[in-house]
């Protein structure tokens, strides 16, 4: 790797580690200082390495520079140092003697604790995801803006406000107490799930970026699995769900970036390794009595890795959706349940159920009704597809619906 390739690569992995460790040391109110030190470290690497070539052990180089920068700030800025001092774990030592621990263990611990701090219920889900992308995944502001189909200014404002809020709420970078961990973990899982979905369903045309988002969500979920206290069945279920979904990454978009519907996907493009990982984690998730929504969604995703339309498959999927809806209602789940019902009991039964849903501002609802009426009453099917077309917002959706109308 040349230094031009090396630095972005290291940035993605090491920026977040340095930031997490320093931020843990300084406290959440100095998150910006931690980010700046990490940023300056890479700036120096860029200057030095392109001139002298990369050092033998680039990571050690980065850590040494970051440590020195942190110590210098503590030395130079007495007021800052005083503010920091009481929060330092080793409060006996003076600032010049502070040991900045960039060991693997402390890095993992700090990142895990940062994950809990960032996924704090006091800030909005959107802000949590943005912060996680910045602090824990090392995404640039522009990349985050791309992922959210937004602009840099908005994202910068969002990040700034979120950091202020975390400071104001005095959120500690620490592992939640045993009593609290269950509640806080649910919030972390929701954020990781949304982060994954942001990548999976994003309208952003940048395929690599979208896949990166998914992989980062999986990496952070895996961080929780590696930690004994958070290696819980529902965490394994969430990772399993992500593996199953990610296995279809290559198959669900064609070369023009259009969504390829599940039934039209080439299953040879499905990633067998990710599928078997998904099965591994769902098995791990089955230890325990509580069935979370992630268990149900992972099981549904598992059945979708089997392409053949068997009776058993659709009966299982219907049952899982029945359970999922009882835990948490969502229009998507209601529509998918009705689709599964049509596979088990036929279209007539499904039409009766579909008409009860009345999701009249949802274009998927009309697409489903169109599908159900197809070959039963094509005039009605066309009307429903047209209603769906007028409600659809993205070009991809509109194209898909147009094809359906043409196929009647």
């Amino acid at each position, binding site marked *: 790797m040349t230094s031009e390739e090396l630095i972005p690569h290291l940035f993605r992995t090491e920026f977040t580690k340095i930031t997490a460790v320093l931020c843990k040391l300084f406290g959440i109110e100095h998150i910006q200082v931690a980010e700046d030190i990490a940023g300056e470290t890479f700036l120096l690497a860029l200057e030095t390495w392109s001139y002298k070539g990369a050092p033998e052990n680039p990571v050690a180089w980065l850590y040494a520079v970051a440590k020195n920068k942190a110590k210098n700030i503590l030395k130079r800025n007495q007021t800052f140092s005083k503010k920091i001092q009481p929060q330092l774990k080793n409060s006996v030592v003076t600032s010049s003697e502070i040991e900045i621990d960039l060991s693997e263990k402390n890095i993992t611990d700090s990142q895990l604790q940062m994950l809990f701090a960032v996924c704090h219920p006091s800030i909005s889900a959107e802000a949590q995801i943005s912060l996680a992308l910045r602090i824990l995944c090392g995404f640039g502001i522009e990349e985050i803006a791309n992922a959210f189909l937004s602009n840099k200014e908005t994202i910068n404002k969002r990040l700034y406000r979120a950091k202020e809020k975390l400071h104001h709420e005095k959120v500690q970078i620490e592992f939640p107490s045993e009593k609290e961990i269950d509640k806080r973990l649910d919030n972390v899982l929701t954020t990781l799930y949304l982060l994954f979905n942001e990548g999976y369903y994003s309208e952003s045309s940048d395929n690599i970026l979208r896949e990166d988002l998914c992989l980062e969500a999986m990496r952070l979920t895996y961080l929780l699995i590696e930690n004994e206290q958070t290696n819980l069945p529902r965490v394994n279920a969430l990772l399993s769900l992500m593996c199953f979904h990610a296995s279809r990454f290559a198959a669900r978009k064609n070369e023009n970036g259009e969504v390829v519907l599940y039934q039209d996907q080439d299953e040879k493009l499905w990633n067998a390794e990710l599928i078997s990982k998904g099965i591994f984690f769902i098995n791990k998730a089955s230890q325990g009595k509580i069935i979370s929504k992630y268990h149900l969604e992972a099981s549904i995703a598992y059945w979708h890795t089997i392409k053949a339309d068997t009776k058993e498959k659709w*009966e299982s999927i*219907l*049952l899982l*959706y*029945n*359970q999922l*809806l*009882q835990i948490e*209602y969502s229009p998507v*789940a*209601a529509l998918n*349940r*009705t689709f599964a*019902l049509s596979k088990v009991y036929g279209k007539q039964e499904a039409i009766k*159920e579909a008409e*009860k*849903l*009345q999701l009249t501002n949802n274009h998927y609802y009309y697409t489903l009704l169109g599908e159900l009426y197809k070959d039963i009453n094509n005039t009605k099917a066309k009307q429903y597809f047209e209603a769906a077309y007028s409600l659809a917002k993205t070009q991809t959706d509109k194209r898909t619906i147009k094809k359906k109308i043409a196929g009647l």
Partner: protein
Amino acid sequence: MKEFVLIFRTSPNPDFNPSPEQAQEMMTSWMNWMGSIAAQDKLASQGSRLGISDAKVVQPNNVVTNGPFTEIKEFINGFIIVKTDSVEDAIAIAKECPMVKGGGGNVEVRRAVSPEDNS
């Protein structure tokens, strides 16, 4: 939206001994019924299924008798809570209950008292 409690009542039938397939089928129809209510976003609570054995009735003056409440042939074996605009909607849901459709029991539909009712 109002909340209605659907109380399931059934009479014990010692002759009814479903085969595993029948039991499975009954379970599926309950799950489909509950799923259908949830898909309409009208399920407020999954409620509970109640065991029959060891039931007790606690009466005034610390009198405890073995239950379930036995003054009638039918006993309660569970409940769920639905949220609908009207009692008619709740009744329409109750009519689809597998226990009612199959003739195995009745559903009592009762509106839950909401905080607004007290004001």
